[in-house]
């Protein structure tokens, strides 16, 4: 299979000798963009620019003329890039996705992390590799953060609903707070469900019974 990625035998180009790589990050989520840009800057990449959804993608990329483009797989604007590469090919400015059978592990890691990268043909492999690896690790770090945040939110919401369920039980059964919680726990254990789920059921049932 013929691949678009540069081979070692590619003759030197301007991109190989210039010290700074221009990296475009197409990212709608400001937090993830910041995490990624920080990582790239720590890695010595200073010419990093974030393009968000409010920008005209083609115009910005044309002005910036990046060596590497990083974009999340969940971003539908990947198809816009595809069209741009078609058009730019006519203007002999080839941009290609980083695909190389030798780097199969890295490609799979990238796909799993939900990140894709495009590079100008002729760029040295090791330089691109460092950037793509950084993008992968930062995408994964953001994912972890997001999961932690979701878990915290769910826990907070769970606590709130347990408080409400306790209140309902105390009112309807004329019992104390500790007894109310004991009831919830008991139901949780016998039904093998989370206390917060049982509490949610109590709250829902109560709202249905209310007039």
């Amino acid at each position, binding site marked *: 299979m013929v691949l*678009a990625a540069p081979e070692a035998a590619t003759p030197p180009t301007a991109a190989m000798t210039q010290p700074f790589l221009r990296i475009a990050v197409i990212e709608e989520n400001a937090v993830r963009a910041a995490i990624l840009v920080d990582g790239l800057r720590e890695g010595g990449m200073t010419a990093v620019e974030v393009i968000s959804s409010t920008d005209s993608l083609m115009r910005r990329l044309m002005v910036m003329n990046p060596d590497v483009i990083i974009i999340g797989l969940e*971003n*539908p604007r990947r*198809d816009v890039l595809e*069209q741009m590469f*078609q058009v730019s090919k006519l203007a002999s400015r080839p941009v290609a996705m980083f695909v190389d059978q030798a780097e199969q592990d890295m490609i799979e890691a990238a796909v799993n992390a939900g990140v894709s990268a*495009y590079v100008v043909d002729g760029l040295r492999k090791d330089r691109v590799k460092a950037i793509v690896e950084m993008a992968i690790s930062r995408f994964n770090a953001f994912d972890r953060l997001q999961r932690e945040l979701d878990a915290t939110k769910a826990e907070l919401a769970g606590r709130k609903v347990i408080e409400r369920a306790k209140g309902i039980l105390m009112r309807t059964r004329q019992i104390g707070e500790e007894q109310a919680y004991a009831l919830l726990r008991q139901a949780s254990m016998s039904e093998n469900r989370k206390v917060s789920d049982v509490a949610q059921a109590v709250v829902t049932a109560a709202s249905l019974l209310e007039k």
Partner: protein
Amino acid sequence: MTDMLVPDDPASATVAATTAPRPAMRRAGPARTVRVGFVPLVDVAVLVAAAEQGFAEREGLRLDLVRDVSWSNIRDRLAFRQFDVAHALAPMPVASQLKLGSNPFPSFTPFMLGRGGNAITLSVPLYREMADLAGLDGSEDSLANARALRAVIDRRAAAGKPPLVLAMTYPFSSHNYEFRFWMAAGGIDPDRDVTMTIVPPPFTADAIAAGAIDGFCVNAPWNLIAVERGVGRVVATKRDIWPSSPEKVLAVRPDWAEANEETLHRLIVALDSAARWCDEPDNHGTLSDLLALPAYVGAPAVLFRTLLAGRFPIDPNGRIREIPDYLAFHRGMANFPWRSQAHWIFAQMVRWGQVPWSADGATVAAAAFRPDIYRAALGERAGPVDALRIEGDAAADGFLEGGPFDPADISAYLARFPIRSDVPVSSTDK
């Protein structure tokens, strides 16, 4: 027979049984999982029906349908083995065989997922301008609409206004080629007279409402959504351009197909039954409810009912158009991968300068369509062995411009079109 799960590890895939006998009744043994990528559009119907109405199960398959947001992702996740097969645009396997695009990993199609669904929608202000200038009363056919658009473009150019911005969904798409075909028939050069851009289907109605684009060509239900929101006017449908034009296909990863030949055959049998089911008007209610689920397309069921009935508003004023066969999932050999249609797609790629013409190129392009696998799965009578025919020569199946397409003479066909952007052959010769 050896019943095994589809291996996730491609290295172990080579041990899969390839030629097991096929039992007549429901398959025994554990279900084989097939991972299927799709983009939320109405023509994912056959895959959804196969997964939800028992057609896959009957063949001992479990379809793991995974929704995705872009055609680039479909292509790449197929290439990187996250999908075994996928809902794809018919030109995508052709482009992949020709090594076009930024990740030209080869795929092929043994089964088409249906015809129809596309339409061209222009913004309401643009249509009004056309109507004023050309004296349209709304009843005109698509060619008259294209000519009226040409008149508006000329007037705008004379007034020094910037070119209109028209969107489609992917460079290798029926939408790109149909939009261009229609414009050119009306005397518009899509590479010189307008700016062509890409807008992902779910954003088309917003983009036209915001004035970011002046029109688009996209599959259902997005045209209808733009009309119902009062921001778009449908000026042409696929039927006006070429009724038989192939739309979506089942794209298959070659290494998966090689290691899972029997599973692929079963999948084709399941999809064949599902496609027949989707064509039955009695099933359209159930199908609409399924498509409406958030896991699939996630739009109101009533929208799908309207589209499947082939009778829907094309204008915010409520003008209704009846389009028989607007969506065909099986009838008229809609699932058969005609190699002549792969040739037609190749001809469009040549016409618009995506690839230079060559006889070898035409052969490579045709290899993306695999009627041999279709026939192996469904029987020798399922379609002709060469899968070649003159396209668009039936009375009810004509092209908007240029007449029938003979796959044996692509150059002569293209010479019939005054507007094209093909690379002159002399400059591409070695």
